[in-house]
């Protein structure tokens, strides 16, 4: 069971830690900067801090938190510890949208950056398509959801490969770069809207913690404790897809965060979603912010794709965690 004390100790420490990361990360970078200049309003340090680094760090934080959250949701929904935000095809749909925009050379759609718009549209369409396929009568089962998602995923991947094959050299580079995932500075209004959407999804997910607990154990088990299966499955799928779609359309598919952060947190705090959800959200935020800081500094002035860092850094860390913690588990 979960005491208030244990809950707040964990949530506060994860939250403060990730806030500290988000506050410190903008101070690190390829060009030296003095914090006193930033506050004194002296350019170019102020420019760099507020318009190049801070929005980028904040986006990394939001994206990391959202991906970890989507990972938690999909793992519970599919009762599969290998599920990731990308398992059910939303990110491939989003990638297909982006690749189409690149291949057709679209720059803006309705005054917005074309890549983000088509990527988000791709994510939304894939989500609806998977849902349409997976509905059996009025029920949504995790098994058909998984099959439908995986199938749509590979169809989208095939579409991407096909377009990539036809693309010119310059486009081909842009496609590969997008597929590697990366975080760029965005405007504060964009950041604000994204944050509002993702935080709303976070609170809905949090409010349904006990339902994810039950669903993670079994459908019949959950139904027997009064969970409305169809509604909860649908809510979970929509939440996970929304989080994934929003993030992927802004950053491309950044791997590993959504798989490894929930598992690392399960080793630390256990499987109870009431604790797992907020801790994963904050840890995901801090983790991706750190990875992105490394990505933009380690080979400065060149940047390393952040997806490379998440796996190179996160992989060994997780192996270490597994080796040291598994004695206390039953493994």
């Amino acid at each position, binding site marked *: *069971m*979960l*005491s*208030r004390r244990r*809950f707040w100790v964990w949530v506060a420490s994860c939250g403060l830690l990730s806030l500290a990361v988000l506050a410190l990360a903008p101070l690190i970078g390829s060009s030296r900067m003095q914090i006193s200049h930033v506050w004194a309003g002296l350019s170019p340090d102020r420019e760099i801090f507020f318009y190049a680094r801070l929005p980028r760090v904040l986006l990394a934080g939001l994206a990391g938190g959202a991906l970890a959250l989507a990972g938690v949701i999909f*793992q*519970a929904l599919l*009762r*599969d*510890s290998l599920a990731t935000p990308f398992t059910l095809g939303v990110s491939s749909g989003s990638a297909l949208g982006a690749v189409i925009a690149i291949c057709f050379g679209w720059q803006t759609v309705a005054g917005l950056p074309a890549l983000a718009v088509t990527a988000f549209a791709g994510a939304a369409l894939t989500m609806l398509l998977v849902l349409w396929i997976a509905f059996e*009568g009025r029920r949504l089962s995790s098994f058909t959801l998984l099959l439908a998602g995986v199938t749509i995923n590979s169809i989208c991947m095939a579409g991407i490969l096909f377009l990539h094959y036809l693309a010119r050299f310059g486009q081909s580079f842009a496609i590969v770069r997008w597929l590697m995932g990366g975080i760029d500075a965005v405007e504060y209004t964009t950041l604000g809207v994204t944050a509002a959407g993702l935080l709303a999804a976070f609170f809905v997910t*949090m409010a349904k*913690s*006990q*339902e994810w*607990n*039950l669903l*993670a*154990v*079994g459908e*019949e*088990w959950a*139904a*027997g*404790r*009064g*969970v*409305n299966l169809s509604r909860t499955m649908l809510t979970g799928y929509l939440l996970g897809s929304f989080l994934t779609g929003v993030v992927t359309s802004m950053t491309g598919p950044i791997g590993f965060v959504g798989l490894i952060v929930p598992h690392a947190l*399960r*080793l630390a705090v*256990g*499987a*109870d979603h*009431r604790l797992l959800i907020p801790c994963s959200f904050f840890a995901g935020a801090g983790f991706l912010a750190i990875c992105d800081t490394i990505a933009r500094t380690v080979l400065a002035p060149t940047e390393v794709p952040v997806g490379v860092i998440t796996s190179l850094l996160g992989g060994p860390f997780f192996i270490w965690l597994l080796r040291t913690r598994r004695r206390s*588990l*039953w493994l």
Partner: protein
Amino acid sequence: MNVLYQLAGLRMRLGQAEVLHGITLEIFAGQMVTVVGPNGAGKSTLLSVLSGFRGGYQGRCLFLGEEVNRWNKRALARRLAFVPQILRVEFPFTAEQVVFMGRTPHCHGLFESPADRQAVEHAMAITDTLEFSGRDFRALSGGEQQRVILAGALAQQSSVLLLDEPTTFLDLKHQIKTYSLLRDLCHQGMTVVAVTHDLNLAAAYADRIVVLSKGEVAADATPEQVLRPLLLLEVFGVRAQIGHGPAGKPSVLYGPSEITC
């Protein structure tokens, strides 16, 4: 006696096959009913209809006067608890967390109330599971897991328990303890419907045995009336003798080479 369930002409299809072909029976409050029958007779399906999990049935299945598939799920879960045979848990939930899940239909908000804690502790105490409350559910033996699952259902504090083979993995002592517990609960007003393969436990504890065969009710009466060699031969294809068990209950005896086709 209060009627709890009224089933009339209950039919249920799973995929192409019709698994239940018209079940008619009534279950009264405070009864201890066991459902027996060969594999594929429809026992588990019947249980999943009674629990409200499978709502796509035809015919009537009234629970407290209303079709069980039209009940609000949460309200239903406060009145009846389903006990599955096994749980395949993928994640590191502790035994206590699994039991606490039974409190879900009573919970409001994120944290458990003192009443929730008390219910969990009591349920774990009477199922002998307190000693492993902090352990990973997956690390427990089959029988220990089964007792934890039962504790989860008891923590739900419903007035009806529906159990799917609750003693499959239990050692002899805990088989007897579990059935004694169920009978005691019945005496306190609980209604128990248990699917089982153990005819002797059914004979020793049940008020009533419902024999299912090929999706129909083959017999429905007291253990003394139901457990007869001819019926066992017809339904199970086994030649068995009926002896006298402890406390004057019938006991079923069978040995090798007594199987008919």
